[in-house]
């Protein structure tokens, strides 16, 4: 009440848009062009404290540009950004911002002939309250690589070191841009576990990715970018639901059974057979419903895999295109 009457408070609230006290990043009407190319157009979103927020979209959607504006590497043409209350456009705020935000950038490297330990010690010296090198390398599985030159690390190890460097200053926010690109599937899954571990330490994570499965697995909320705009924003399942998608479960039955057992269930829409495997598509508590119904009828479901209708479906529905269609990059 008091706030609404005070003119300064009104001005401030219009300036920061829909920011709530728990928002650590607030982006409002962001626009950035390179020459005649509009990279980011009227983008607004807020990131809450302690969440993993995904910026998802195909190459060239403006994801990296938006993130670069947020961490003060680029100056927006229009719109306002506040990160922990700081303005990345102001020189003075930006330096303070850089003590609070750790970044793993898509195009960046560390000196080739410094070892893992030397690189970490170097970046450690940049902060007043740094993390412990030993603990960090243990968490990131780099403990036996401390004496290796950066140039001798594998792609996955370089990525993990980049994450370690992003975390060495004990940031409140970690920005991770395409951190699993180029990694093998095992390394990707390890990295996902790692990100969840980082969030568990109370770090808010802004995750940029063009992998649907990554966003779906990790993110609390996702902003779906396409051609410089946000086409949808919500939890992965909200977006999938918006696309009309449901869930699916695949299993190998212990014996043959009548499909009607399952098609009669209210939340099942279809049952398909692929060799010995059966795929059931539906919505709601699909897995439990399917397995329990089968069990009651003396059928064991083995080798069960399940999943939600995907963000991929959502993207297709919203844009009419597949996310992995090659597009010219201007990121």
């Amino acid at each position: 009440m008091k706030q609404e009457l005070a003119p300064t408070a009104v001005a401030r609230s219009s300036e920061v848009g829909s920011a709530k006290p728990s928002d650590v990043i607030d982006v409002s009407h962001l626009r950035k062009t390179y020459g005649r190319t509009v990279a980011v157009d009227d983008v607004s979103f807020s990131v809450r404290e302690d969440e993993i927020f995904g910026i998802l979209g195909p190459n060239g959607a403006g994801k990296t540009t938006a993130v670069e504006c947020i961490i003060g590497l680029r100056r927006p043409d229009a719109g306002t950004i506040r990160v922990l209350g700081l303005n990345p456009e102001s020189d003075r705020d930006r330096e303070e911002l850089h003590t609070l935000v750790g970044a793993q950038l898509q195009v960046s490297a560390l000196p080739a002939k410094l070892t893992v330990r030397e690189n970490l010690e170097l970046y450690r010296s940049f902060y007043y309250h740094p993390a412990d090198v030993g603990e960090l390398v243990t968490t990131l599985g780099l403990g036996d690589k401390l004496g290796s030159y950066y140039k001798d690390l594998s792609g996955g190890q370089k990525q993990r070191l980049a994450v370690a460097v992003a975390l060495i200053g004990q940031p409140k926010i970690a920005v991770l841009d395409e951190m699993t690109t180029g990694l093998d599937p095992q390394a990707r899954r390890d990295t996902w576990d790692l990100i969840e571990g980082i969030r568990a330490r109370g770090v808010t994570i802004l995750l940029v990715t063009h992998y649907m499965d990554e966003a779906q697995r990790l993110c609390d909320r996702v902003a779906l970018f396409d051609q410089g705009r946000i086409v949808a924003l919500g939890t992965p399942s909200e977006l999938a639901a918006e696309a009309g998608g449901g869930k699916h479960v695949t299993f190998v039955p212990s014996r043959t059974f009548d499909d009607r057992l399952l098609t009669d269930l209210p939340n099942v829409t279809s049952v398909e057979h692929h060799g010995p495997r059966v795929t059931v598509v539906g919505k709601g508590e699909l897995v439990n419903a399917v397995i329990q119904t089968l069990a009651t009828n003396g059928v064991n479901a083995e080798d069960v895999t399940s999943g939600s209708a995907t963000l991929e479906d959502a993207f297709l529905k919203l844009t009419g295109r597949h996310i992995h269609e090659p597009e010219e990059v201007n990121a």
Partner: protein
Amino acid sequence: MIALQSLLPPQAPRAAFRKLVLDEFVLTRRTPNRGLLGLGLPLLLLIVLGSIPKLSQPETALGGLSFIEVYIPTLIGFVITATGFLGLPLPLATYREQGILRRLSTTPVPPAWLLGAQLVVNLAIAVVGIVVLVGVAMAAFGMAVPKSSLGFILAILLTMVAIFAIGLLIAAVANGASVAQSLGGIVFAPLMFFAGLWVPMAVLPVQIRDISTWTPLGAATEAIQDAMQTGFPSAGQLLILAAYAIVAGALAVRFFRWE
């Protein structure tokens, strides 16, 4: 931009600069072609040429000086130019190309600190190179104590500032390590010609000597030579060096890009 940042109290601990300098030394030691060539080659030239007795005899064509006496300022110029044109811009261009500067600009450390660290490291290498070179020349090849020691040191310091400013300009405009290397090499050859690396300026036509006076290394070798043989160098030579330092330095600041 550089000036602005250095006026603000840094968010990063001052110790970070020390660490940057130390690591740049470590990296230089691990990347031997980075400017260390500039230390070995002039010393080798001094020892090889100094060991030929005829080159230590006074020559009327050289105004009564020996070839070695004329050549010492050239070799000093060589040390400064090798560190300033290769040792300084090459790592900076590499860091920009590989995104190391970009990575650094997301930390509280101003990227200008890395530039400063590079300057400190390469100046230190140049100073050590010159001290060793002059020490060996005095101990083994009969170089006399300069007539004006102050002028000698001042001329060398001004040369360093001018050449390093040009080196920073190379780092500013080169958009990759290979470009920086070629650019450094392309500028190196003619500048060293006017410093008399291949032929002493004294034996060349007066027109070429006149041009030489206006080049940074021509002015530098003349100033150093005068300090060694006659006394405090002329204001003209020192002003030419200062002008190169100011113009190249201003252009470098104007055009430097962190990414």
